């Protein structure tokens, strides 16, 4: 009887630990970043753009878009395999209408080990442009772009397999602003 009780207890503890571990791992690998807390900035912004192309819409698009039609085929190719495209962009009349805390609230979600910042990327835009990638081994899970200019704050979050080339093609499409992102030549340690 005691043995049976011990065995059941052990199984219960292992199950709970397994559930906790799975939850933590899933959360760490979730390349969707939270943006809703920035919504309060819409009251100060001269323009707010919020794009939500979720998995349902991408799947519908992939299912219904015709490969023989040029417009449909282009969009289908771009969104193929993606699980979501989310953009939040604020334009302000004045500088400092958003705070460093707003920027940090995004950066804090883009930390290692789930996310890595790509250093070999520059932008034609003024201000800070940071590109982050979420990897699981060699698989790309998602990408995030944080662009903080004096009067503009933009966050782009693409969930799914995406690279810089695809990001460049997506700029100006699907509600993603033209961020002027371009990969630079990889620097060696001696050059840095």
């Amino acid at each position, binding site marked *: 009887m005691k043995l049976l009780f011990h065995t059941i207890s052990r199984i219960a503890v292992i199950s709970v630990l397994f559930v906790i571990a799975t939850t933590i791992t899933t959360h760490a690998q979730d390349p969707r970043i939270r943006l809703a807390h920035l919504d309060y900035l819409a009251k100060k912004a001269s323009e707010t753009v*919020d794009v939500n192309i979720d998995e349902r819409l991408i799947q519908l698009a992939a299912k219904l*878009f015709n490969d023989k039609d040029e417009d449909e085929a282009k969009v289908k190719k771009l969104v193929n395999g993606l699980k979501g495209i989310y953009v939040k962009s604020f334009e302000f009349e004045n500088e400092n209408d958003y705070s460093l805390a707003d920027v940090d609230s995004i950066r804090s979600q883009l930390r290692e080990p789930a996310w890595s910042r790509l250093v070999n990327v520059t932008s034609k835009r003024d201000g800070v442009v940071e590109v982050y990638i979420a990897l699981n081994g060699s698989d790309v899970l998602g990408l995030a772009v944080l662009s903080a200019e004096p009067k503009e704050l933009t966050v782009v979050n693409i969930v799914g397999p995406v690279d810089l080339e695809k990001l460049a093609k997506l700029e100006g499409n699907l509600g993603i602003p033209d961020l002027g992102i371009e990969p630079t030549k990889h620097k060696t340690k001696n050059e840095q």
Partner: protein
Amino acid sequence: MKRSGSIKLVTVLLAVTLWSTISFANGDDFNSVVKMIEQFYSVKHEGLPFLAKAAMKAAGAGARIKGGDAKRFAEAGSIKLATFENQEFKGDFIKFRQMLNDSLTQTWMPLVQTLAAPDQEQCYIFVRENGDKFRVLVVTIEPHDGTVIQATVSPKNLALLMKDPEEGAKAITQEATIIDQE
């Protein structure tokens, strides 16, 4: 006998409940959005869906007569339009946005939302599947005017809308309001 009567009654009740659920899910979110705007902003709409539909059909026929060159976004006869003209849209637009999203996101997918605080301008585009086509709901609110448009679009036009949502929404709104004026 009593048991079979109860079963029939339960079946009828279930059927009625199911029918009303399906009707709500499929359907008249257009009207509920118009009502929501009216209640939130204390405004009154002017809707001409029947005339808009008729004009849309006429425009479609016109396009065909011209050789089909005239480009249209919405499918013929699919437009539902409600306009609010020369009225005051005063209220917390963040609150309105929240209300709108809460009521629609169960059945519609929010595609793009743009807001401009100085003039309290708002534009919302929602999309949902409608057989082999898509249904688009565009809500535009400006300081003194507003429009609610529901239209069915082909996958090709949804592709165009997804590529450039802002321009797509403008095209749908223009199409619906120009037809309304004809």
